[in-house]
């Protein structure tokens, strides 16, 4: 019978004796434990609502009566065939791209001006942020007053200055989208100013000096020095502001509501609200939310990829 003999014929092996092992939690487990609260927070605050929305979107569910029926993807089929859904996407795109473009143009312009040295610059910089700090309801009341067709200041200035014999009716169906875009631009351009101005202040002035030596004028300096330097900031601003504007609810709702004038600016968030809390179809509303979420996620992914490819090119 074979036996096991750890002793060598040459004598006992001089193996190091293992030290007594401590009963310790492995280090990687500590990592999990420490990360757990954050993970739970993310699961609870982000994944659960998104998951629940998706679950609701598969149901026909009344907003407050206990009526809930599983209908699979039927809500999505309704939406696909829904003329008003496609219209809300179209209007949302017009509003988001229109207000975003103007915010970028006005915001970058204002940031460039505020980056110059002049007396009272600090005060003007603070003033430029003012619209962004105003509550939306105040902005809406102010704008409705300014653009009112009977007693609005805009009408008074336009007609009084002789610019036009009759000022346009800002809140009629032909102009309400434009009015909404202008109001949004005024309210949100300071967001662009803050980001761009912060970046402008860190640009190495030697770059401008070198460009001047090479004979670049103001426009070429902007194109070849400033713009490449603020590109990274603009990338983030465009991404965020597009998402903010596409999902904007309060300003449009307070301006125009759902019906009447609201018909002409009924973007996807407004349409979703009407379906969920007007028609009380929470399941249908959840399906719209899921679509909106998917669209914006897809937009972010595509946008990142395009930008990165551009960066590496």
């Amino acid at each position: 019978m074979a036996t096991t003999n750890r002793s060598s014929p040459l004598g006992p092996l001089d193996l190091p004796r293992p030290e007594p092992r401590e009963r310790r939690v492995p280090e990687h487990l500590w990592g999990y434990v420490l990360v757990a609260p954050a993970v739970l927070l993310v699961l609870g605050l982000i994944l659960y609502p998104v998951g629940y929305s998706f679950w609701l979107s598969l149901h026909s569910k009344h907003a407050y009566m206990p009526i809930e029926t599983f209908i699979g993807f039927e809500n999505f089929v309704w939406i696909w065939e829904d003329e008003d859904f496609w219209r809300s996407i179209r209007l949302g795109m017009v509003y988001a791209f229109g207000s975003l473009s103007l915010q970028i143009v006005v915001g970058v312009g204002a940031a460039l001006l505020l980056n110059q040295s002049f007396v009272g610059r600090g005060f003007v910089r603070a003033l430029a942020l003012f619209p962004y700090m105003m509550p939306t309801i105040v902005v809406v009341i102010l704008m409705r007053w300014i653009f009112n067709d009977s007693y609005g200041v805009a009408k008074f200035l336009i007609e009084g200055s002789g610019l036009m014999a009759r000022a346009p009716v800002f809140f009629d169906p032909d102009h309400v989208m434009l009015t909404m875009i202008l109001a949004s631009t005024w309210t949100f351009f300071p967001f662009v100013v803050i980001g761009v101005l912060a970046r402008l202040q860190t640009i190495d002035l030697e770059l401008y000096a070198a460009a001047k030596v090479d004979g670049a004028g103001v426009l070429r300096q902007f194109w070849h020095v400033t713009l490449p330097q603020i590109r990274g900031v603009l990338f983030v601003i465009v991404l965020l502001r597009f998402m903010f504007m596409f999902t904007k609810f309060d300003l449009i709702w307070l301006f125009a509501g759902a019906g009447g004038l609201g018909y002409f600016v009924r973007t996807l968030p407004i349409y979703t609200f009407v379906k969920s809390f007007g028609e009380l179809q929470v399941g249908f509303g959840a399906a719209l939310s899921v679509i909106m979420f998917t669209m914006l996620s897809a937009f972010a992914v595509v946008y990142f990829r395009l930008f990165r490819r551009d960066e590496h090119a």
Partner: protein
Amino acid sequence: MTKHSAFARALRAGAAAVALAVFAAAPAMAQKVVNVWHTEPNPRTKAVIDGIIADFEKENPGVKVVQEALAWGDLDKKMQAALASGAFPEIAHGQAYNERSLSAKGLLRPMNDVIASIGEQDIFPVVRKLNYNEKEKTYYGLAHAVGVDLTIYRKDMMREAGLDPEKAPATWREWIDQLKKLTDKSKGRYGLSLAGPGFFINEDIYMWVGSNGGRLFDEKGRPTFTEKPVIETLEFWKELADCCLAPDWLSRGYLDTFGDVATGKAAMIVGWGRGTDYFEQYAPDAVAKGDIGVFKTKPVGPSAGGKPFLTQFDSEAWMIFKNSKHPEEGAAFLKFFHRADNYLKYIQSVPVHFFPVTQSLRTDPRYLATPAFQKWKFWVDAQHEVIEKYEPKPVMITEWKDLDFPFIAELANSTILVDMVTEVTRGQRTPVEAARRAQQRAEQLITQLGYRKW
């Protein structure tokens, strides 16, 4: 002093404070709280309700009444949350169709005892008809006050246009002719001003369809938007928009329309008696000269076929929630509220718009002596005539049976009818196309909600 003794002393002090707080809170905890949600945020009305509550609490120790005045839209949302969570108020206002829908779901306490305490036969017949559930022989609500939507106009502008200011148009054709004469677009003056938000378009469409001999639903609840009276109403609206409405009418709020009449931007509006305050504030000259008038009748459409006009009955009902904590105390409060003395004070808080639901109060000398009637008695009388003769109906209800359809609230809060009107008046669709689309959307909504019965 040792740490231990300091800790013990702090512990004793804390325990004493808690005991004191519990003792002090004991009477409050023993109170039965009656929550009242209503839609009359007017400070005068709120003050009157506060007074009634104080008197009620004196008579009913142990009961506390808390009023909460909300805007209509806010009440809807608050009610949705309450229904979803089961945290019902004892008493709340609601539209007539909400009352029917909630009672059908078994959520409301019958109010026959409240009605009996007021005197059933004393209540105006049309109010009884509105709140009485024939099938169950039960009242589940009672209008807190009523009002009637009337045509309000500037007599001076009528005279300037060569029109008889006392002659109400009998037909839509006559009305359009009047409005054309009252419109001068070069001066920014329009014959009519209508409120554009969805709620008000719903109000106008059902009234005009009803005034054209039409209906919004058949017996089974199927929408009837493609029927001739609805199409004609849309054609009429298109003509109105082209000839006689301001280009921004869709953005005009309800109060804006009163401002339009007060400032002479529009000669006519449709609205309620609450606007008298507005005229007194912004058009005191016109009021002093008696240039603000109301017509007792409204015009009818070409398919009316001898049927009278339909106008809106402002008639939100008090409802008592069966599953609230103190429904019986809620009922006791409503009985107290409707005692003649208390109810008179309430009605006088908005003297023209609040028309009493009881016939005895209508003829009560104290009511007739209401100071505001010196200027506005004609308005109250016009409302009375409509209530007695023309059976006004609540919003979205062209026929009494419509009250029993469970989807009226969802349809009213959708944009289906509003979009139909908007598309026609903007020339984006013909009346037939817009009506077909609205019909299809409404049928889809009712199907999705599970209420389809045809």
